[in-house]
């Protein structure tokens, strides 16, 4: 059974359709990448899976349970599915360790001392032990995004949604963030990510999906999508990426 099942999902903002019937499955321990132009619906799809947006039609199931529409226990859902954002969204008024420990404390009911201890262990694993007591704005963008990943992991999610997590970073800081994602993939974390880093997508994904104007036009193993794409639109998109020197 797939861990995340997306079944004919529609989403509109007012009269503007953003997702026009998306079907997509993410198996456990799979890494699935969404590619496509800005505005193609990648981020919106991720936000719908996490319950940050309501969908207008179709259904999303996580681990077999319906995770969209009324009656969804979004708080539980979010404990199973973590999310990392393009702009990090660290809480600027808390130290790094408090950022990481907040959800275990407030959601999991873990005592502060224990939660902060666990947070330090996690930070250590991504090489940020010495930044634990800094405020987020004292860190570089790459370090902030690593903290954000650790924060999402602190509640022990079974899957991660990564929304263009390197798009706001200076080029020289991208690698340190991708290294963590690679490590997570190797460790078997189920991940669904939207990205413009095509080389990375090719290397780390089990499946690549090309979204175009709210429609999932093509999906397949990375060798196929990047090697011999079937759809003309996919070819045009990848051609522009190559012209821009990004692949």
């Amino acid at each position, binding site marked *: 059974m797939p861990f995340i099942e997306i079944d004919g999902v529609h989403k509109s903002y007012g009269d503007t359709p953003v997702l026009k019937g998306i079907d997509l499955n993410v198996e456990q321990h799979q890494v699935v990448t969404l590619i496509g132009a800005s505005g193609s619906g990648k981020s919106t799809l991720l*936000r719908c899976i996490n319950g*940050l947006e309501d969908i207008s039609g179709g259904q999303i199931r996580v681990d077999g349970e319906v995770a969209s529409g009324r009656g969804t226990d979004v708080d539980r859902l979010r404990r199973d599915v973590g*999310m990392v954002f393009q702009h990090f969204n*660290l*809480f600027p008024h808390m130290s790094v360790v408090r950022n990481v420990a*907040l959800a275990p404390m407030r959601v999991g009911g873990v005592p502060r001392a224990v939660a902060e201890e666990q947070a330090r262990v996690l930070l250590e694993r991504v090489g940020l032990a010495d930044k634990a007591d800094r405020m987020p704005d004292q860190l570089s963008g790459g370090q902030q995004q690593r903290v954000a990943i650790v924060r999402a992991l602190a509640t022990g999610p079974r899957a991660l949604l990564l929304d263009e997590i390197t798009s706001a970073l200076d080029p020289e800081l991208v690698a340190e963030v991708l290294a963590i994602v690679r490590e997570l993939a190797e460790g078997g974390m189920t991940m669904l990510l939207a990205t413009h880093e095509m080389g990375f997508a090719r290397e780390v994904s089990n499946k690549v999906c090309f979204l175009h104007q709210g429609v999932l036009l093509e999906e397949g193993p990375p060798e196929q999508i990047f090697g011999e794409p079937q759809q003309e639109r996919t070819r045009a998109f990848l051609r522009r990426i190559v012209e821009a020197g990004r692949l």
Partner: protein
Amino acid sequence: MTVGSDLLTAGPARPKAAAPPRNALPLAGTAVAAVLAAVALTAVTALSVMDAVPGAGVAVTAGAVIVAAAVLTQLRPALRAVRSSRKAAEAWAQDRRADARRAVSEAREDAWTALGWCLTALVVLGAVWFLFANDRAVQRTFFDRDVIGISISEIASAFGTNLFIAVVAQVLILVWGLALALARMAPGRAGRPLRLLATSYIDGFRAVPAIIIIYLIGFGLPLAKVPFLSSLSPVWFAILALTLTYGAYVAEVFRAGIESIAPGQSAAARSLGLSQSSTLRHVVLPQATRRVVPPLLNDFISLQKDTALVNVIGTIDAFNQSKIFASNHFNLSSVTVVAALFILITIPQARLVDRLVAREQRRGKGA
């Protein structure tokens, strides 16, 4: 690219004939004249004050000398401005354009500095004239030393009532304002009635002048014979009225602060599994509070001043106390004392707000 190629290959634009810098000599001349005029006016003012206040010759002379000396220090920049203007013309004639422009710029700055100080001196002198005009009538009406001496201690202790009202009201307003703001932002379909209620309350109480609310509550509640409420003292009526009015303003301050927090903050907190109320409490409000402190203090300063409105319901605050002295002595100096007390407590807070705003802006840039 074909669009830019024309721009890139086109030759350099032909230089226009350079225009000479503006002549600064008239301005410099005005500055010199202004300095001399201000000194002369100081002397005339001093003489007329000595006439009005016999026996204060030494003090008046000393004051006049200080003002005149301050103005005279500006004679140097004024004269320097004249010299610079001449030099500029010379330099331009010899085609030393940068030198000419620099000289003019220096001349203008010097001249404006001198003029600025002269204007300030004129305003001060004008105030002195006003004070001592009409055989000191103005000074005696507003600054009579005897009346101030008699009234000051009782007014100062009555001012304690103003401070008490202000401080208690501020605490209540914080709670009430936040409650209103949250009600106004109650989410979803279920929150709609609450939103409507809060919105109409805020609209209503911001529309009605505070003095009318105070009047209605101060005279109305005792008449209405409401249990408990009607038996409160006028001071508590005032606190109640000001809380109702200012709660509406402060609610809007809180709402603006909460809405100014980036939506990504809530999204991140919610995606971690925090509930709506946990998100508000641990993520949104702590950030919003920091942002609303400056506008909040502004509202509180204006609240402190509005405590003087309670005189309409007969509470003996500083203003009412001073009015008693004013009518007994047929002189307003006691009211001046109240004004001075308000200035005394307000200015430090105003400066504090400025500093907080500056700090918030620095923080905003750093993030």
